[in-house]
């Protein structure tokens, strides 16, 4: 079944084949410009491809927003080692559900993006690392890959150009941390999914210690149109330092949740109110997680802004992975904070102390606060502990746990206070002692 018809306010570029019947098949793909960009790229020089991507101002769609062309340029061209392409399809950031649509409805676009990237850096092998829970997508990707092999868009001597490129899927086993690029590479190599020391970065030493281009699904998927229509065209769709369109995944308290493609810089409130159908009748906006649960939460009055990197940074949050979670005034922010920290506690790989121990401690305190047996000092403690994790962990997961927590406690403190245990603390007695008897 094809995906929902696009909303009129969308700018559909990478999602433009979602709505076609049989969109995942190679025939549909070829009938709608499929592999044209790859065909073109196969005749381009490595530098020309990378320059086009640099001109496009494409920034990584996985969360960190690193300029893609620049990353590709870091691959040491002279290195005698093989180069690899790795697709990050671990999509696990709460609120984010765009990569699955790309793979479900337009898998050949991803293959095409990989092929162009491979040509750009001289790679002959790639893997699509798909989160274990996306089992059904593995079948779809495998089928598309088989079709591509059959039509010689993968394999030896692609389209008679003499260029070889092999691609296969690899499944994760259910760890959010394996979406972090270096943990992903460990997992891909068959090891425990925990991050590596960086530098070196994957572009220099990635899979099996070889130069590796690792990007998000959506990032690779943006590449074919850049090659087809030019970097300048793509850049012109977005804002000065971030080109193109993005898929916004809007979930939560809206009437028509879904995935929508908008140019970078699209106003947040329009996305919520027009595309996602606005809030339920009688409800008011309370808060928005703008780009996946790792981002600081915005209060309703902070949400009137364009969805681009700089504007969100100025508002103290991040564009992240495009996973927007809309919370209306029925939301219990203590529960929201607990839910978020439960996720990070569960997903902390345990490698480093502040994240391993901090997330569990936070979960325990927030559980008490939610149970109505917290004491006043707990509120500050939550904020302080999160601050003590921030910037000190081995990988960014620790920050991802700390940032939303800090923002919720700061912005919704009154809700925490209203939930404190109703006990009299005798003068001179520590609050924490009292709590034990609650």
């Amino acid at each position, binding site marked *: 079944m094809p995906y929902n018809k696009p909303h009129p306010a969308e700018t559909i570029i990478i999602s433009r084949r979602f709505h076609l019947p049989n969109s995942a098949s190679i025939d549909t793909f070829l009938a709608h410009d499929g592999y044209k960009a790859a065909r073109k790229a196969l005749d381009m020089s490595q530098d020309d491809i990378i320059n086009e991507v640099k001109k496009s101002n494409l920034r990584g769609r996985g969360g960190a927003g690193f300029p893609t062309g620049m990353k590709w340029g870091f691959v040491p061209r002279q290195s005698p080692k093989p180069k690899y392409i790795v697709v990050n399809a671990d999509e696990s950031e709460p609120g984010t559900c765009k990569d699955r649509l790309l793979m479900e409805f337009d898998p050949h676009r991803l293959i095409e993006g990989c092929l162009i990237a491979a040509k750009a850096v001289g790679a002959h092998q790639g893997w699509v690392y798909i989160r274990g829970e996306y089992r059904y997508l593995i079948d779809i990707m495998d089928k598309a890959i088989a079709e591509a092999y059959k039509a010689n868009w993968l394999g030896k001597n692609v389209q008679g150009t003499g260029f070889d490129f092999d691609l296969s899927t690899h499944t994760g086993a259910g760890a959010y941390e394996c979406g972090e690029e270096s943990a992903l590479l460990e997992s891909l190599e068959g090891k425990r999914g925990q991050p590596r020391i960086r530098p070196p970065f994957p572009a220099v030493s990635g899979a099996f210690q070889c130069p590796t281009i690792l990007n998000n699904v959506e990032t690779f998927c943006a590449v074919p149109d850049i090659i087809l229509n030019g970097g300048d065209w793509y850049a012109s769709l977005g804002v000065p330092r971030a080109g193109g369109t993005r898929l916004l995944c809007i979930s939560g308290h809206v009437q028509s949740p879904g995935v929508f493609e908008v140019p970078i810089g699209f106003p947040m409130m329009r996305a919520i109110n027009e595309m996602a159908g606005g809030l339920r009748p009688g409800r008011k906006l309370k808060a928005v997680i703008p780009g996946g649960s790792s981002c600081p939460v915005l209060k309703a009055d902070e949400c009137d802004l364009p969805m681009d990197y700089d504007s969100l940074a100025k508002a103290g949050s991040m564009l992240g992975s495009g996973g927007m979670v809309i919370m209306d005034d029925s939301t219990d922010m203590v529960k929201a904070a607990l839910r978020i920290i439960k996720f990070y506690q569960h997903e902390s*790989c*345990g*490698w*480093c*102390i*502040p994240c391993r121990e901090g*997330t*569990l*401690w936070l979960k325990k305190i927030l559980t008490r606060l939610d149970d109505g047996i917290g004491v006043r000092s707990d509120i500050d403690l939550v904020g302080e502990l999160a601050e003590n994790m921030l910037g000190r962990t081995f990988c960014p997961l620790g920050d991802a746990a700390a940032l939303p927590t800090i923002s919720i406690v700061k912005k919704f403190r009154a809700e925490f206070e209203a939930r404190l245990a109703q006990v009299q603390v005798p003068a001179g007695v520590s609050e*924490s002692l009292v709590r034990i008897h609650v």
Partner: protein
Amino acid sequence: MSNPVNLTIDGKAVQAAPGTLLIDAAKQSGILIPAFCYYEGYSLQAACRMCLVEVEKFPKLQAACTLPVAEGMVVRTEAASAVQARKTTLEFLLTNHPLDCPVCDKGGECELQDMVFRYGAGESRFTEVKHHVDEKQWSPVVYYDAPRCILCYRCVRVCDEGMGVTALGITHRGAYSEITPNKGDHLNCDQCGACIDICPVGALTSGIYRYQTRPWEMEHVGTICTHCSDGCKTTLGVRNNEIVRGNNRDSTGINGEFLCIKGRYAFDFIKHEDRLQSPMVRRNGKLEEVSWAEAVKAVAARFAEIKAAGGAIGVAGSVHSTNEESYFLQKFARQGLGTPHIDHARSGDVPALIHALAGKTDALATADSLYHAKAVLVVDADLSQQHPFLAFQVRANVRHHQAAVYTVTRGPVREEQTAAKAVHTADYLAGVRGLGEDLKKHADLVIVFGDGIKGAAVGELVAFGDSLGIPVRYVCLVDYSNSRGAMDMGLLPELGPGYHPAAVRGMSLPQMAASQDLAALWVVGADPLAGGKRLASGKAFVVVQDLFLTDTAKQADVVLPSASAYEKSGTVTNVTGQIQRLKKGLNIMGAKPDLEIFGLIARAMGVDAGRAQNEAVFEEIRKSVRGYNVPLPVLATGGAAQAQPVNGRVDVLPDPELVRSAGDTLFTSGSLGRYSKILGSVMEAPGALYKG
């Protein structure tokens, strides 16, 4: 060194080689940056976050354990932000830590305690329920208490990188992460205890030492392991005249922190219930306990009679005795008893090597050369089983300097895991010759060989080494703690001290056993009649000095209980000629050091063999044994003095057929090993290869 990098740490101008890690550069200039997971010599983890410091121009605190120094870097290790981070990381760490210091083995020498003492908060803000997991026993020697574990992964690395065993890994995740044996719930490993030793806290504890004592109640006695010939320093923890632990935390020995199961745990034989504690004399066919005076008198009187009658006296020396004892024994035998029949259980053809190297300098390798040589060739030896420390050195060399390892062995050995080439053959010389072209490529080479290369083959091996055109050094492997010293001191029928031909060539051990005329056999710490063998001479008067009633002792006329290496002082020489000092750790009631026993017998016989006293005998050794004129202060301070090369013509070469290694494994140690319950309790020594 390329141009040094200049940086400032805590206001101090510091220079360091490019590529130096900040934590090392700081240490070199006397600034200690706190660390749990960083451990010199092992791979980097950046996991504990204790080493975060402030570095100018970096927006965040930086991990000093992974940050290379850079020109102009300005570092503040005690900046308020860094100190605050440390304090809070410790606070996080303690949340699930049981804080059972009062009963923890590590209490008093725990890095977590020290760190909390220095940086920790005075009060705990954690009022939640701690996560608890029950303690697990992984093997007779290794226990794991997960709640105490701080997940520094040192144990995982020492086992993988240091030991080449890879027995440990991590299971579960997040705050529930635990260390676990990689294969199932128990350890089938080297049982070396390195993981326990390197653990900064009391998470890994030893089955031998746990809950025995507090560290401050022990006396720490640095001595030398009495098992194999590698000569590791071990620090005995002695309490109430009992050894409760062996370790090497002060790292001052040639072995650094290394010890194998034997050095760390196999001291328990000294307290075995079969230990001899009283002299015995055979009366009416039975051995009866007598006083020392009586026993010594019996020996002296009989020796004197036999000597006067011109009867043949055979003397079997020990591979565990000190140099002083062996030297004194051969001198007493040759000069006092007037007998040339002296021998010991030979396990490597050292005389043949010394002869083959005549005229060369710097041709004998040390334990240190195995760590520095560009290439190592192992011939007929399973180093990981028989010479655990030498094997460790080779692994460290591969890890730190990418040394090339070659093996020529009959079957698979662990060294093959990292070997550039491994050859399986029983024709060792042919195997070695096949590697000539490969070996030539390296800047230098150490050849380590076992008893498969002896007699003429040693000369052929050295000729092969000469043909390579690169500097080659050699190690001739021998079995036990003073096997090498026994030879150097001249416990050989053909050779006296320093490999000088003996004035009169005596009988070898098999010849003594086969001799119809043998009038006496004096056995010191050896078991030539093991397995119930009998002397051909029915009339021989047999005297045995030993710790246990060996097969030979069972046939003896007089049995004298002797002290083990842990109960006496003196010097021993390891497989690579490094002379080190034993330090007495305790007394076992009734037993006496061999040297003291020799002195008593000599005195009772009225023979002057010099003073039977360690310092006096060692002075004589320094003067009269080639290579042993070593500086005394080195020994006195617990160091290893290298015997000078004694390479030179050996005019009478001993019979190579008598060279035979006992072929001990990691978990055996000749007759001593049989009395070690801990060695008996671990599973069979694991096979050669762990990985794969």
